[in-house]
C-alpha cells in the first residue's frame, strides 16, 4: 500500500493537506509527545499502553510498532512528527526515506541521493 492517494496531483508526493492532517492527528500527536524526555521513557517502557493513551487504532498501532514508515505516512503521519520515534528507537532519516521509496538503503543512497 502506498502513501499516495488517487487525487494527489504531484506523482508519489503526499502533500500534508486537510485530509491527512485530520486522518493523522492521533498518530502525529503521539509522535509529537516524544519531544518530552519523560514521555520518551514511558514509550520505551511500555509502547503498547503508551500508544493506547493517544487512542491509536489497531491499524495505527501496528504501523508504529512495526516501524512501518510508509504505512504511518499513509495513515496521515507526517515525517516531521513521526521522525521523533527515531529519537527513541534510532533509525537514520535516509532509512526512513528508503523505506518509503521501496528501496534498500544502499540503492536509495546511490540512486536518489547520488552517493557512491
Amino acid at each position, binding site marked *: 500500500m502506498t*502513501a499516495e492517494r488517487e487525487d494527489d496531483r*504531484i506523482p508519489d508526493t503526499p502533500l500534508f493537506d486537510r485530509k491527512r492532517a485530520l486522518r493523522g492527528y492521533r498518530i502525529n500527536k503521539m509522535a509529537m509527545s516524544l519531544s518530552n524526555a519523560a514521555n520518551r521513557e514511558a514509550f520505551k517502557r511500555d509502547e503498547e499502553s503508551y500508544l493506547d493513551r493517544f487512542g491509536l487504532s489497531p491499524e495505527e498501532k501496528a504501523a508504529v510498532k512495526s516501524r512501518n514508515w510508509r504505512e504511518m505516512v499513509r495513515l496521515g503521519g507526517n515525517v516531521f512528527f513521526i521522525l521523533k520515534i527515531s529519537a527513541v528507537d534510532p533509525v537514520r532519516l535516509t532509512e526512513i526515506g528508503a523505506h518509503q521509496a521501496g528501496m534498500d538503503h544502499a540503492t536509495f543512497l546511490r540512486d*536518489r541521493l547520488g552517493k557512491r
Partner: protein
Amino acid sequence: MAKLVGGLGTSHVPSIGAALDKGQRDSPEWKPFFDGYIPGQRWVMDQEPDIAVVIFNDHGNAFFLDKVPTFAVGCAEEYRPIDEGWGPRPIPLFKGAVEFSWHFIDKLVENRFDPMICQEIEVDHGIQVPMELFWGRPAEWPVKVVPIFVNVIQYPIPLPSRCYEMGRVLREAIDTYPSDERVVVLGTGGLSHQLQGARAGFLNPQADQAFLDDIAIDPGKLAAMSREEYVDMFGSEGAELMMWLVMRGAMDAQVVVRHKHYFVPASMTGAGMIVLENKISTAMAA
C-alpha cells in the same frame, strides 16, 4: 534609522547541526559543505550586524497541529533551543531584539498582515542551524534575533507571492526604525528535498542552481510561481524555499551577489547559501 546591511539565504538541514555536535565539521563528508560557508562567515564578521531577522519554519516542535499560525513573529526577550526529541542542543540561547520585533509587528498589521505574536516560544533547527553556519559556535551570539515562523507544513501553506510581499513590509520596518542598528535578514530552508512519499529522496540540483541565480536577478519569477510548482520542482519539503522570498523582498530590486555556495546532498537535501547586498549600498561603499 536602522540600516539593512544585506540578505542571506541558507539551508537549515538538521544534520548540519548534528554534524557539528558530533565534531564532524572536518570529516570528508562534511568539510566541503562547511568550507563553502567561510566567505559568508567573513562577510558577517565584516558587517557586524546587531540584529538578525531569521525567516524559517518550525518543524513540528514549537507548534503542533492543534494551532498552526500561517505567519508568526517572535517578540521574546530570549529564545531557548527546543527539545526536538533528542534533548535540547548545547548551544547558547538567542537574545531577542524585542523593540524591533514589536515595531515590525506594528508595520505588518498596518500593512494588512496579521501574524501570530509570540512573547514566549522555543526555537528549533530552523533558526539554530543558519545561526551556526554564519556565526559559528560562539559562547554567546553577537546579534539579537527576530524569528519569523512560516507554516510550510500543513496545507494551505501561504503563497510565495505573500512571502515576497512580507519582505517589503520588513524593509519598511527596518527603514523606519529609529536606531542606528545594523540589520541582516536570513531567508532559510530548502533547497530541493523530499522526506515524504514514494518520491522521498528527490533532489533537483539543476533547479537549485537556477534558484540561486533567480533569487538575485529575477525574484519576481520565483514569487509568481505556485506552491505546486515549488513542490513539483523542489520536492515536498523544497517548498520551504519560498521563505527566501521574505528576505529577497526586503532587499532592493537591484542586488549584488557577494558569495554563493551549493553542495549536494547534505543528508537528503540540496544545500545552498547566498550573500546579497543592495547594489546602491555596495556602490556607495566603493
